[in-house]
């Protein structure tokens, strides 16, 4: 047992660090610093740079564009991205639907979707949740019926509603779970469809979240014709693909590297923000203790993740530990935003969305970091709800790990 990185890992870290430093777009950095909302092009700009370099999909099989990195290297990669505070690569295409396509898809499907997804030419959204089907995803009711089109080809006619669909406003394609056999048992009548978001009958309506952002949407499907060849895997076997995907969704969800970076930022903030006595907040024993506790909890999470990684390197799949990583990772991320808001003091209150922080007259409105403190705190509440809520994750551990 030892905690050291091998020399080749250290060399790898330096290589990655240099690459990010030399290639990360400066405009993007500026927008991030200003807390501006990211456009589709912003999200894709870093994606495309990494695609060119061959690093956008480290976890894919090497033959398809994966990097073939060891788990340690992947870990270093995520650490370095967080350290440099790069914009995250959106998971829907690279980490979610692609593994389903290369595991369950036909050769045509692989050819059509994988390279385009890799290169950032297809923006994917995830159409799973419905108003009536959240935690109980298998309760979904969006209906897909087989029909023969006027052109003599086979289609699914899809009717129903999806909701909470992240960034569907930008999506070119969506992967959807639909009910193809309403008479079968819940999990057994579901199919996995890829749907072109430009198909007639699809309406995307924004849902504004409590932080004021347009991040999620409702997606209405009304007589949407989907060619049968856009089904992944067998009809009525979509649940198998969906479950496989959920396992992928959870890995990396601990966000250790991002939280580390967040704590560093918090320490920076608290060492300049004044406490009640005018000294830096970080020298206030009460505030300092909370930061210390957060760091210790993050260390516990980090070493749990490292143990999981080491296990993976020896061929054990990401198991139910992923539920632990998800619960603890999201709780830590949320506490972090809570402390940033606390550090902002009075200046946590001003709200700037759709409202210029600069301009008007010159009176400054608090320190820069404070402008995003409350919205970020509000927004991060989502992390214990999505990706399998933290209650559901605890149910999983109770059942699968503890055998209760």
């Amino acid at each position, binding site marked *: 047992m030892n905690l050291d990185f091998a020399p080749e890992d250290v060399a790898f870290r330096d290589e990655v660090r240099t690459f990010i430093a030399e290639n990360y777009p400066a405009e993007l950095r500026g927008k991030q610093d200003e807390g501006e909302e990211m456009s589709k092009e912003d999200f894709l700009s870093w994606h495309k740079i990494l695609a060119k370099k061959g690093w956008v999909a480290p976890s894919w099989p090497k033959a398809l564009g994966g990097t073939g990195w060891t788990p340690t290297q992947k870990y270093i990669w995520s650490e370095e991205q967080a350290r440099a505070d790069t914009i995250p690569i959106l998971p829907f295409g690279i980490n979610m639907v692609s593994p389903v396509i290369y595991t369950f898809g036909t050769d045509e499907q692989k050819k059509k979707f994988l390279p385009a997804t890799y290169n950032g030419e297809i923006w994917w959204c995830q159409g799973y949740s419905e108003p009536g089907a959240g*935690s109980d995803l298998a309760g979904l009711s969006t209906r897909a019926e087989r029909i023969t089109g006027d052109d003599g080809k086979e289609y699914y006619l899809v009717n129903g509603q999806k909701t909470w669909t992240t960034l569907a406003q930008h999506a070119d394609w969506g992967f959807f779970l639909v009910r193809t056999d309403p008479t079968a048992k819940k999990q057994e009548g579901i199919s996995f469809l890829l749907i072109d978001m430009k198909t007639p009958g699809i309406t995307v309506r924004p849902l504004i*979240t409590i932080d004021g952002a347009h991040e999620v949407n409702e997606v209405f499907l009304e007589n949407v014709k989907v060619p049968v060849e856009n089904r992944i895997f067998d009809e009525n076997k979509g649940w198998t693909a969906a479950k496989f995907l959920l396992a992928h969704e959870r890995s990396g969800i601990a966000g250790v590297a991002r939280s580390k970076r967040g704590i560093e930022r918090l320490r920076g903030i608290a060492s300049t923000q004044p*406490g009640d006595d005018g000294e830096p907040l970080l020298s206030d024993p009460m505030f300092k203790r909370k930061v210390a506790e957060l760091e210790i909890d993050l260390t516990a999470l980090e070493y749990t993740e490292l143990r999981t990684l080491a296990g993976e390197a020896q061929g054990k799949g990401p198991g139910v530990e992923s539920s632990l990583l998800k619960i603890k990772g999201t709780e830590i991320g949320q506490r972090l935003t809570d402390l940033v808001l606390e550090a902002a003091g009075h200046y946590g209150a*001003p709200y700037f969305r759709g409202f210029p922080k600069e301009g008007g007259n010159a009176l400054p409105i608090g320190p820069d970091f404070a402008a995003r403190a409350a919205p970020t705190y509000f927004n991060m509440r989502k992390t214990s709800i999505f990706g399998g809520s933290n209650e559901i994750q605890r149910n999983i551990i109770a059942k699968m790990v503890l055998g209760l």
Partner: protein
Amino acid sequence: MDFNFTEDQTMLRDSIARYLQDRYDFDTRRKVVASESGWRPEVWKAFAEELGILGAPFSEEHGGFGGGAIENMIVMEEVGKALVIEPYLSTVVIGGGFAKHSGFAGASDLIGGIIGGETIIAFAYAEPQGRYNLADLKTTAKKDGAGYTLTGHKAVVWGAPWATHYIVTARTGGSQKETSGVGVFLVEASASGITRRDYPTVDGSRASEIQFDNTPGILIADDAYGLVEQVTDEAIAALCAEAVGVQRKLHEGTLDYTKQRKQFGAPIASFQVLQHRMVDMFMNLEQSVSMTYMATLKLGEDAEERGKAVSSAKVHIGRANKFLGQNAIQLHGGMGMTDELAIGHYFKRATMIEGLFGSVDHHLKRYETLSFGKAA
């Protein structure tokens, strides 16, 4: 011992509750929040004329109903339940409090204006460098003939865009953090030398940064740190009452939602883990009510007892707001995240109340100092 409301107090509560139910529904509030002015002067007018609640905590000789802190508590709880934006706290509780306790020459006029609804007050006490320390003041007041002129930057002045007057803390003497030399001034919003920068707040209200530059002001009280603490304590007790209203809605809304929402073929309220969570929310809420009563009833005690009571209430309320707010969102699932439902707005207000007039840490420290002494 008696924790019952009098008949008049019950009537006060019922009449404001009824008014808000009819005229202050969530959708209307959303539209008002998004409007240019961000509030409804006609609601304020109704508070003054139709309901007469702006006189609730003032003595009869001032033209009020002869009530006090309990009346403020009653009104503020309803303010919390309906997420009322109009500035009862800064105008009636704080503005009224300074007028009542100082008895300065203009006190009667000021109270008359408050009761009549013509005078709206914002409390300009915080400064960019000062965090929650009420004595950390760089704003200065210079004697100028019969009056004073003020110069300095006041931070996040809630309700300032709507105010006719500001109550401003400023130094007549002493150094930046000293408790001596703190003066309290009344400044007209239309006075010279004021630069204001207005903005919305995350919970749907409005506030401003205000720069005073040789702005004329009337002295309410000099060397008045004790008065500032007293009125701030009264404001905190009233804010706790608002928090109780907010917490009731967070709890009730979550109970209702989880009873209706079905997953896995059952109302999610039937899952034991969620039941226990809602029980914990309930216990937090009940103790918030207790602490609010306690603090309100102790506002008349000496500064130390009063301070301990108010700070302990604020500590509990701050924690309970967080617990109830976060769990209300969590138990609503995705629905908790949307701006279209009221629940998220109660969460946002609860979050802001956590920090107003001092965080949990600030009041824990104040309690420790008052209870164990400075040396401890």
